[in-house]
């Protein structure tokens, strides 16, 4: 029985957030703060011939202007990944080439925002415009303009073909498998641009402390990667930089990117003054986005519907720079293909450069795009063999004790780790969903008439829990005089609740209560290392580190207690923030023990550091069912009910876990239905505001039911797996399948916008 985990304890920072007291990046005052702004490229592709800042320099209040001709030129990636990053080093603070509308041309720091904006207008830039690639399918053509022809970038798969990344893996014989298959399905989708839209846009403030060290206060998922990448770009050792992540206003992947901090840092180093960069909402849309992808799936099955062969071809569009270019594409294979057993599997992925906004990490990380195709293909197969979509999945999905060769073949830009499934409650989630949505009442579209037609669809999904053999987290715990504990973690709470979840894990192991744990996180000077919050890793990996540290501290407490209670260590039992001697029936509180160790005898600090990496990345699983209504006159889709069962192992904090799933679903629903980029003929995003880029508000919320199906993952802390990303994978394919069930059209382009649906309906007559 658990005491502190698997319990919806209150979020440890909840009240301070609800009272507006919690400090975000911008909530601390800085004397003499400068405001940073970017001059951005008006053209999608071109060479900067000259930059004339003489008029801008004269403006009172302009403190510094940085651009290609007065800054150093260090190739790097902005992807906040572990070192060495699996993303190409194709980015510079400033380059003499611009590669998309919005690319950084110059950075201005001035005493006010208005002056900085004024200065931007006064800078004269001469460009030589080059032809641009504005579509992922054009990027690899023979005569396509080369986007990265600079000499010193490296790690690019094939510069001549505009290929940022590429991979092919083969298991069995896919060609033969498809040729000999009794049933074949061949289906493609094109997924679209979208943006994370955290309600707090990207923001950072840099300043010098009293010793002249550069302090970076930033809204980031990856403080330690910020330090490392800034050190590289600013050509200074890591020891001169401290990165602090205060409360941050949502991230979802877009803040796993290091691309503001070094501009502000550079300006601070040049002027000695604090510098703030805060993106406007419009700029946020061209900060980092989701990789649009073309995904083709070919499936070979026998007449019963048993899958034998899966081939997945992916072309991913990384935009102008290859941030997460290789790994997001890898993940569309590695997080989708293992879900179904097949003897022959091939994954062939390419990531292309275009002169469009830069993609990056986004919740779901390629899996979302892969499932947009794969889970429609399963429905097509079911129809071909005359089976129910639920049944076809049950007979093909991976089971407990099984593995997939894909786990080993496809990792994080390289080979992965062999993983046997040790926990799965997918069938339970499926059975529940069938009941909740009244699946048995589902009738084919051919039997539906009238203007409004309802349809039901479903899908199953998996993700991962951290990056095996790569992601490392650590935690430090020490006891205080009163028996409370400081817990210091490099892990990064993005609003996800990880400070709470990690405190609960510490409390459980230490046999105390969560409110007895004082957590401090994400500060490169004060907390031990953690790769940061991404790849669904924090509960699983950082939680493992906290558990390790707590186990060590527990041993020390037992040792001191034995000394105090004059007994053996194995006679000591910890319970309710106390140590008991079973034999003597005596006890000491943790406060007594803390004081004794600090002041009385054989003094030392009870405390320990724990680190953790994982050999495997156990997938959470999810079953989704949806009912929609299609207005056949307007093409509008209304989601009536969305049902989602998730197996995330033990939910350390069920309420927070549900919240992760609900948030991901609603994000996924608007990604599926309303979020889209409108580009002009130069590839400029034209709808960069919440008025023109529609994310769901509370009125758009359908009836939404989320239920957790706890399994027990033996490799996770107290049985936990991840939960934060998986939810976003469901909406596109489940709704697309429901759309087919309602009106008989298949969506292969997104979002499923009314015009598009109407168009398809008309074509079908």
């Amino acid at each position, binding site marked *: 029985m658990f005491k502190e985990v698997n319990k*919806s304890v*209150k*979020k440890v*920072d*909840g*009240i*301070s*957030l*609800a*009272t*507006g*007291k*919690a*400090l*975000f990046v*911008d*909530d601390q005052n800085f004397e003499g703060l400068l405001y940073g702004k970017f001059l951005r490229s008006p053209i999608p592709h071109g060479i900067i011939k000259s930059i004339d800042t003489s008029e801008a320099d004269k403006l009172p209040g302009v403190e510094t202007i940085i651009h290609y001709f007065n800054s150093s030129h260090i190739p790097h990636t902005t992807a906040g990944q572990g070192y060495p990053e699996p993303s190409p080093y194709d980015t510079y603070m400033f380059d003499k080439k611009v590669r998309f509308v919005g690319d950084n041309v110059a950075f201005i720091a001035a005493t006010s925002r208005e002056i900085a904006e004024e200065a931007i207008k006064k800078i004269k830039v001469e460009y030589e415009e080059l032809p641009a690639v504005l579509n992922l399918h054009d990027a690899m053509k023979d005569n396509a303009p080369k986007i990265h022809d600079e000499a010193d970038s490296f790690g690019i798969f094939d510069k001549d073909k505009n290929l940022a990344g590429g991979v092919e893996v083969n298991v069995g014989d896919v060609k033969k498998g498809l040729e000999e298959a009794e049933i074949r399905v061949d289906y493609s989708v094109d997924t679209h641009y979208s943006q*994370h*839209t*955290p*309600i*707090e*846009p990207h923001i950072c403030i840099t300043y010098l402390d009293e010793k002249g060290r550069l302090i970076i206060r930033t809204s980031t998922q990856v403080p330690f990667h910020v330090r490392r990448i800034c050190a590289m770009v600013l050509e200074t050792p890591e020891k001169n930089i401290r990165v602090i992540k205060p*409360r*941050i*206003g*949502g991230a*979802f992947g877009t803040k796993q990117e290091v691309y503001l901090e070094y501009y502000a840092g550079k300006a601070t180093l040049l002027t000695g003054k604090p510098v703030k960069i*805060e993106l*406007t*909402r419009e700029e946020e849309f061209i900060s980092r986005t989701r990789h649009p992808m073309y995904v083709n799936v070919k499936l070979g099955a026998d007449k019963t519907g048993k899958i034998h062969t899966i081939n997945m071809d992916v072309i991913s569009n990384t935009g102008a720079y290859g941030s997460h270019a290789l790994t997001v594409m890898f993940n569309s294979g590695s997080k989708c293909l293992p879900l179904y057993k097949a003897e022959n599997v091939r994954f062939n992925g390419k990531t292309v450069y275009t002169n469009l906004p830069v993609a990056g990490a986004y919740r779901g990380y390629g899996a979302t795009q892969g499932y947009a195709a794969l889970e429609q293909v399963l429905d097509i197969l079911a129809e071909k063999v005359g089976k129910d979509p639920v049944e076809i999945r049950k007979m093909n999905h991976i089971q407990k004790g099984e593995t997939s060769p894909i786990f080993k073949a496809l990792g994080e830009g390289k080979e992965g780790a062999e993983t046997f499934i040790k926990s799965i409650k997918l069938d339970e989630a499926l059975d529940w969903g069938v009941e909740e949505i009244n699946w048995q009442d589902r009738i084919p579209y051919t039997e539906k008439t009238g203007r409004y037609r309802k349809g039901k669809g479903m899908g199953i999904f998996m993700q991962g829990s951290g990056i095996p053999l790569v992601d490392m987290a650590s935690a430090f715990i020490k006891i205080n005089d009163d028996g409370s504990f400081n817990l210091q973690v490099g892990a990064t709470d*993005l*609003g*996800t*609740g990880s400070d709470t979840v990690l405190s609960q894990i510490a409390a459980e192991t230490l046999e105390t209560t969560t409110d007895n744990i004082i957590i401090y996180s994400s500060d490169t000077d004060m907390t031990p290392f953690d790769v940061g919050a991404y790849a669904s890793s924090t509960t699983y990996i950082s939680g493992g580190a906290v558990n390790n540290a707590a186990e060590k501290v527990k041993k020390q407490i037992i040792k001191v207690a034995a000394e105090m209670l004059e007994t053996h260590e194995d006679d000591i039992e910890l319970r309710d923030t106390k140590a008991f001697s079973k034999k003597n029936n005596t006890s000491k509180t943790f406060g007594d023990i803390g004081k004794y160790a600090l002041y009385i005898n054989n003094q030392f600090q009870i405390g320990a550091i724990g680190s953790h990496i994982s050999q495997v990345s156990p997938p959470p699983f999810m079953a989704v069912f949806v009912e929609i209504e299609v207005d056949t006159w307007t093409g509008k889709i209304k989601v009536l009910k969305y049902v989602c069962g998730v197996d995330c192992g033990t939910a350390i904090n069920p*309420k*927070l876990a*549900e*919240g992760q799933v*609900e*948030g*991901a*679903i*609603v*994000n996924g629903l608007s990604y599926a239905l309303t979020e889209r980029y409108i580009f002009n003929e130069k590839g400029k995003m034209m709808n960069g*505001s*919440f*008025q023109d880029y529609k*994310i*769901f*508000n*509370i*009125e758009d*919320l359908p009836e*939404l039911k*989320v239920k957790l199906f706890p399994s027990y993952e033996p490799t996770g802390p107290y049985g936990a797996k991840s939960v934060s990303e998986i939810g976003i994978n469901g909406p596109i394919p489940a709704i697309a399948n429901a759309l087919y069930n309602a009106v008989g059209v298949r969506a292969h382009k997104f979002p499923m916008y009314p015009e598009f649906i109407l168009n398809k309906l008309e074509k079908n007559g």
Partner: protein
Amino acid sequence: MKINFNLNGNDRTFETEPNEKVLDFLRRIGLKGVKRGCETGDCGACAIILDGKIINSCMLYTGQIDGHSITTIEGLGDNQNPHLIQETFVDEGAVQCGFCTPGMILATKALLDKTPNPTLEEIKNGLSGNLCRCTGYVKIEKAVVESAKKLGGKNV
């Protein structure tokens, strides 16, 4: 120019420029619970209550609050003494990153002050100007329902 207005229950006088937005002004005088999410009036992170109505402070100039009453999140409660709505939001798991939360809570307060027993539709309508990207709104909706129940139809 000088403006006089009631801020969280106290009459105050401040010096301000006529073109200063209320969002910038409030943050300048230290009320950091007012957040900046878009500055185009579309997200509700900067919401305050003006004479009982929820309004986005990024769309107001300081002159427009002269002679009026405003409530910010700081006027509801603090760590030691949180308002019932603030507590309920935390209890229900309606707070994730918390960046939208001050605006959401103020929208809830403005709604419940006027409509102590709101229907689900009235709740959705009352909070429709506030965007949240973290929670998916499910637990926010629940928090409003629970707040209304606990307040028992009383204005607080």
